[in-house]
């Protein structure tokens, strides 16, 4: 492998515009929601409004913890807008890494150079990880910076745990997109799989929140692995994080095997 990671650098150079756009999205969403906490989350009128709604609805959108800073931040950003933003970013980057590149014919030309298929997967996965880590850390930095002015009362270590959760959760969509790209070479399948696992995880979690009878569904939801233990309130959950990051690592291994075994599509 080249010591200077040419494919990693190329991936980052190719996507710096989109990375800036996603960063602005994260900043905008957080700056829209977090400053409202003192007047919304802690406000008795809002609590009364939520009490008037069906409890199933409140639970499925995760607004049952909205009265505390960590629950509010979780419900508005990490569980919803931020989750959507980072999932879309991760899926589109993961799709572009293999399937998109293969469909345009660029991958064929890259592989005719001094580059192995293993190196393509590893360097491009690393580029995906670093971009998601950046977006996740950016959100944690904003939470820490807004902690006092927005009266969130979130411990800095727990803010980092929240970043770890959203990074791990959306990385899963990205690595699914990479793996499906490595298996099929088709952009549409990669995107559908990356977005699909996110939607499925969210839906399973929402259904499982409905009753204790359905609680077992939680254990099948990546969304729940990330957020079930309320990382912003309680810190990192080794079990959930282990599942998320372990599964992503396994998907990268699957990608390595798959791409090394098959013909490139013409």
């Amino acid at each position: 492998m080249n010591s200077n990671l040419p494919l990693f650098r190329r991936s980052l150079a190719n996507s710096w515009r989109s990375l800036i756009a996603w960063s602005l999205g994260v900043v905008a969403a957080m700056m829209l929601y977090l400053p409202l906490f003192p007047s919304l989350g802690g406000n008795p009128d809002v609590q009364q409004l939520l009490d008037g709604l069906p409890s199933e609805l409140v639970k499925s959108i995760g607004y049952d913890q909205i009265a505390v800073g960590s629950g509010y931040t979780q419900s508005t950003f990490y569980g919803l807008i931020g989750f959507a933003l980072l999932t879309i970013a991760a899926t589109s980057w993961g799709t572009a890494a293999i399937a998109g590149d293969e469909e345009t014919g660029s991958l064929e030309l890259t592989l005719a150079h001094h580059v192995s298929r293993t190196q393509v997967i590893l360097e491009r996965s690393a580029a995906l990880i670093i971009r998601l880590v950046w977006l996740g850390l950016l959100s944690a930095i904003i939470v820490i910076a807004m902690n006092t002015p927005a009266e969130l009362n979130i411990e800095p270590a727990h803010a980092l745990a929240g970043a770890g959760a959203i990074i791990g959760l959306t990385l899963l969509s990205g690595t699914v997109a990479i793996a499906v790209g490595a298996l099929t070479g088709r952009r549409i399948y990669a995107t559908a799989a990356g977005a699909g696992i996110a939607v499925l995880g969210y839906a399973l979690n929402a259904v499982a929140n409905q009753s204790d009878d359905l609680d077992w569904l939680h254990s099948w939801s990546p969304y729940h692995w990330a957020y079930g233990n309320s990382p912003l309130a309680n810190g990192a959950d080794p079990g959930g994080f282990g599942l998320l990051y372990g599964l992503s690592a396994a998907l990268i291994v699957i990608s390595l095997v798959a791409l090394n075994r098959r013909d490139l599509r013409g």
Partner: protein
Amino acid sequence: MTNVIETHHLSKSFGRNTALEEVDISVEEGGIFGVIGPNGAGKTTLMRLLLDIVRPSSGSARVLGEDPRKASIGIRRHIGFVPGELRLEGRVTGRQLLRHYASISGPVAPGAANDLADRLGLDLSRQVRTLSKGNKQKLGLVQAFMHRPRLLILDEPTSGLDPLVQQEFLSMLREAKADGQTVFLSSHVLSEIQQAADTVAILRAGRLVSVSDIDSLRLTAIRHVRVGVADAEMHAARETIAALSGVRDTAVTTGDGARLTATIEGDIDPLVKALSRFRITDLVVEEPDLEESVLRLYNIAPEESTNEQ
């Protein structure tokens, strides 16, 4: 003399579709080896097999002495490749893209990329996605040639290039050969192969029809000739050329400006000399039709159609 490329019973199927069947070729170092064949004959598949982009169904290949499947990726530093369908994209300039390709191939001499771009008339400061098809093709050629690889594998390298640039490309090929580089190129245009290659392999429907040196192929090229002759002389002209050896299918088309048409195999000199006695108002000699030449040459019945992949 060592062989840079060697294949043994190399076959490739995609599902039930056979793209390449039992192909044996050997390409000597330092020559220009052309592969011709109609679209779908298996030229692209053959090149992809040599680069380990697709894997053989059976048979084997050796490129620069190694099996592409097992070779260390290091040998690809010594290969320059232009794919058949080059769809370069991205918001990067040509220069940035070339810098990237240089970082994953052999060392590139300072200024080599600029020199090549100048020769081909390519502006490297423009964004790749804004380039025309021809200019993307030029970029593809520059990235293949810039590190002076031992072996150039070029799939339809002149597609999209205008005739002047094609001439420049042919002189790049001659220089590469003079430099000791080996060139393996494909085309469906016979004249291009004739001008450049030393050896020609003909592929048809996945099978190797023949391998021959270029001179034997040139003689058997089929050309279509269309001649405008004054009406009064038409009959005499037709009889004159019909008597020449190698001329067949003479006919007179009627309608707007009558034309004398014929098919000629081999040297056209006798035909031109014979026609010079008449008053010629028009003369068209069409490029030898590759498929027709090949089929006539090897007495193969035309097939309905061939598919690649």
